[in-house]
């Protein structure tokens, strides 16, 4: 091998070490675990909406929701690379770990965001496209750049971004929004604070080191535990609204009540437990809780379809 080819190989290897990410790193930028919940709740909005949508367009809508959410996650990782590097939970992400250049992460996220919005707007409808654009903008500009580092209410207001998918799914079918879609929005909106604060309780040192104003860092564990219980008490009645409004049947209503009781028990245990164990359990259960609630809506609607 000539000296020139050795030098070329060395330069190439250095480029990789400096951020020429592998396929898995680009997938990781899209936050696939978060994306799965977003896709599912978006699909439920689409499934429950009155009217019909061609299966190809329904698939396109779900795909755009997924890509839009992933794009927002990639832009979030670009912006938060400094605090991600200081937190144990996030320091191995592709950008802070140096496997992907910050500019590449931003370009990747921005391209996907624009693509997802354009396809949603042109192929499905303008309302769904506008809502998708709004949710990405809200997550990036309001939550990530505006609230996250400034206020302990970051995830309360920022939680709205994660509550958009059912609205987008609904709008993909109807072209507008209905009361039931807004109830789904409210469920995710009220679920977000207990979900994230349970995580923040046992990751408080991490957040403090990174300078993120999460509630346990600013107000302490006791206040956070009270807030978790408060939001859970507000959430459970809202989860019963689909049945109360006649949009869902008793299958959903009874299931939601049972799940709500379990979630409330989790919150009470968190209030009483000054250690991490109850908070860890509540965080884990909160994900299952939201999946189960939305799955119940699908089951309930499927049971009420003619011929079932």
């Amino acid at each position, binding site marked *: 091998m000539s000296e020139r080819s050795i030098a070329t*190989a060395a330069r*190439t*290897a250095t480029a*990789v*070490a400096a951020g*020429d990410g*592998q*396929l898995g790193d*680009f997938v990781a930028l899209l936050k696939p675990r978060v994306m799965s919940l977003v896709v599912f709740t978006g699909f439920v909005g689409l499934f429950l909406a009155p009217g019909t949508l*061609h*299966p*190809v*367009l329904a698939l*396109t809508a779900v*795909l755009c929701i997924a890509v839009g959410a992933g794009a927002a996650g990639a832009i979030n990782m670009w912006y938060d690379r400094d605090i991600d590097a200081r937190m144990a939970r996030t320091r191995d992400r592709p950008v802070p770990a140096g496997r992907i250049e910050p500019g590449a992460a931003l370009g990747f996220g921005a391209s996907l965001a624009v693509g997802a919005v354009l396809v949603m707007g042109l*192929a499905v409808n303008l309302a769904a496209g506008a809502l998708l654009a709004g949710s990405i903008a809200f997550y990036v500009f309001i939550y990530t750049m505006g609230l996250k580092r400034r206020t302990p209410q970051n995830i309360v207001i920022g939680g709205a971004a994660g509550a958009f998918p059912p609205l987008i799914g609904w709008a993909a079918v109807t072209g507008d929004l209905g009361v039931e879609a807004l109830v789904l929005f409210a469920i995710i909106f009220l679920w977000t604070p207990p979900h994230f604060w349970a995580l923040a309780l046992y990751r408080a040192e991490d957040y403090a080191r990174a300078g993120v104003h999460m509630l346990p860092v600013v107000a302490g564990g006791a206040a956070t535990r009270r807030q978790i219980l408060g939001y859970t008490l507000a959430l459970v009645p809202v989860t019963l609204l689909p049945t109360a409004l006649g949009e869902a049947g008793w299958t959903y209503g009874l299931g939601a009540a049972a799940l709500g009781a379990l979630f409330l028990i989790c919150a009470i245990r968190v209030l009483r437990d000054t250690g991490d164990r109850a908070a860890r359990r509540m965080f884990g259960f909160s994900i299952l809780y939201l999946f189960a609630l939305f799955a119940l809506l699908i089951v309930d609607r499927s049971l009420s379809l003619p011929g079932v």
Partner: protein
Amino acid sequence: MPPAPLHRSRRARNIALAGALFALAALFFAITIAKLGS
């Protein structure tokens, strides 16, 4: 990273990109058919 694994990594990334582009082309075709049919 030595050149061989580097080339394998880039090859995997390029194949994935090609797959994504073909999938996108197929999706646009399917959307066109769906829109024409509605």
